[in-house]
């Protein structure tokens, strides 16, 4: 018995029936990896789900019912633009003094510059104001709205600043070009004037020289005549007469030449005048074109900004309505109602109407009440007048989706 006991105690612990730990370990790790992989695969779709369930969708309705006030404003603006336009493009009365012309051109340029600067300042101011107000409104709303608005504003600001810089550069370039043009024109005129004077001076000298020679020749003849007076007085008489005739002819010739010279000078003057005129016209045309280009770029930038502002406004409205909406318990996921909302000038609710009903009147009523609770949308006042008009009326689509 003792021997048996000892024999059993000595028995080696290694037993063939026992299972090793290698395979179980591998299987256990495999199970955990499987769990991790499943959690990684499943999660994105699960977290993406709540994002897709936006319960209120907003769509714009462009309306033809513009108010008189806004139209008046645009008409005033147009009138102002028209009034400002001839001021710049009207050709100045032609004047012989180039300095006066230059002064006028300079004055016009300065005026244009001042106008542009004033406009830019006004724009920047308006932009800043709009930004500040948009920021304030975004803070009042949810934090996410704030982040979104800030981002958009930063983008808009950066783009606006860049455009402003580009516009300034273009303006400076144009000014520099105009300056160079003016200097060149001045130099040319100076050169022409000098050449004219030179020519006149030479002609004068020529005439003097001719007159002198004539006189000398006359004296010679006189002397000869005196010497040969007794020899041939008749001849001398005839000679004198002939010479007088010749002199008269020469004088007439000189007179004619002078007249032709004067004519040429006048023609050159007219030519110069015409060239200056053409140049001025070309400059005016170029300036007009550049103004038009700048206006177009500005319009594009304004449109973009307006689009962004409209988007942020509609986001704010959508979120506010979403928060205010108490979904009736009887509503099913497939229900959908479209409510048309009309706003007053300061964002107060004028009217709500059901565009397409969900078929459940309680559901429609809850959607309308949500809009009424969310109103007024005072953010509308922060927008530009033109956007206000388009945003005064829009549709909101209510779908509970899979919110519950």
């Amino acid at each position, binding site marked *: *018995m003792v021997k*048996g006991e000892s024999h*059993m105690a000595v*028995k080696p612990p290694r*037993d*063939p*029936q*026992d*299972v090793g*730990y290698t*395979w*179980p*370990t591998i*299987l*256990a*790790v495999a*199970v*955990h990896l499987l*769990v991790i992989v499943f*959690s*990684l695969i499943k*999660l*994105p779709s699960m*977290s*993406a789900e709540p*994002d897709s369930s936006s319960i209120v969708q907003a769509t714009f309705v462009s309306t033809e019912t513009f108010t008189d006030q806004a139209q008046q404003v645009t008409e005033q603006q147009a009138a102002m633009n028209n009034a400002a336009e001839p001021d710049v493009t009207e050709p100045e009365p032609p004047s012989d003094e180039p300095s006066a012309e230059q002064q006028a051109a300079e004055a016009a340029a300065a005026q244009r510059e001042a106008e542009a600067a004033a406009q830019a300042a006004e724009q920047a101011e308006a932009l800043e104001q709009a930004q500040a107000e948009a920021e304030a409104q975004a803070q009042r709303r949810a*934090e996410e709205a704030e982040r979104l608005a800030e981002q958009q504003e930063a983008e808009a600001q950066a783009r606006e600043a860049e455009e402003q810089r580009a516009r300034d550069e273009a303006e400076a370039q144009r000014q520099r070009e105009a300056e160079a043009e003016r200097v060149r024109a001045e130099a040319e005129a100076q050169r022409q004037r000098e050449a004219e004077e030179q020519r006149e001076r030479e002609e004068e000298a020529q005439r003097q020289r001719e007159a002198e020679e004539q006189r000398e020749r006359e004296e010679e003849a006189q002397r000869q005549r005196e010497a040969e007076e007794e020899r041939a007085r008749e001849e001398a008489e005839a000679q004198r007469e002939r010479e007088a005739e010749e002199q008269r002819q020469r004088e007439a010739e000189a007179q004619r030449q002078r007249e032709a010279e004067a004519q040429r000078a006048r023609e050159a003057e007219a030519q110069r005048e015409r060239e200056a005129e053409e140049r001025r016209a070309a400059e005016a045309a170029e300036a007009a074109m550049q103004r038009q280009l700048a206006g177009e770029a500005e319009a594009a930038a304004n449109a973009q900004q307006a689009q962004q502002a409209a988007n942020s406004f509609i986001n704010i409205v959508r979120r506010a309505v979403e928060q205010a909406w108490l979904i009736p318990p009887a509503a099913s996921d497939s229900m959908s109602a479209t409510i048309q909302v009309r706003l007053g000038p300061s964002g107060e609710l004028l009217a709500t109407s059901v565009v397409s009903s969900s078929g459940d009147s309680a559901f429609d009523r809850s959607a309308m009440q949500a809009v009424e609770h969310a109103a007024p949308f005072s953010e509308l006042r922060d927008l530009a007048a033109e956007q206000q008009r388009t945003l005064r009326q829009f549709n909101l689509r209510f779908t509970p989706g899979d919110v519950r």
Partner: protein
Amino acid sequence: MNDNAMSIPHLIMSASTVVQLVMLLLVVGSILSWVVIFQRSIALRRAKQEYNQFEESFWSGVDLNELYREIPADDPRHGAEHIFQSGFREFNRLMPKTRSADTILEGVQRSMRVAWSREEDRLTKHLVFLATVASVSPYVGLFGTVWGIMGSFQSLSMTQQATLATVAPWIAEALIATAMGLLAAIPAVIFYNRLSNDASRLLGKYENFAEEFHAILHRNLQGRDGKPQA
């Protein structure tokens, strides 16, 4: 953006150290418990198969001496075979020494009881670890959660504006600890119950076999004190 910030790996990486340690502990416990689950499942299934085979050959009318001699002495068997081997060995050793049937049967019974208890120890090995993981890991996970939420409230006291967005990541990461604790505990509980049930049923079968074997020996001793003929 939101997707990325709230994904589980991101939450685990951004958790506080204590919570991360808790999570590590739970992962290790879960892996070990699964190792035990697989190892025990395979071992118990084999033991069952071997018991069925042995029972079949035992009741097939073969000579017990033959059966005993088939088992090599230096290659100890398990389960019912082990009980049979130790009991029969004791019987053979006591037979020449005493003529008292009671003494022989007492020795055989004691020897078989020792073998049975060894078998029990072998079958239920590591199951205690499974039970420990099953009962402790929910509490460990809960500790991680409580710690994480404490941190979240501490951070909440620093901010001026208490919004859901400032608390949500903290709570989410804290709750991951509880989720992991449950993930470790649930399989451990299920498999602990299943495996311990299997083991106890197998041990019951061994016990039955030992009693039957004891009855056979007793029957043989009642007739003559010679060698038992099956």
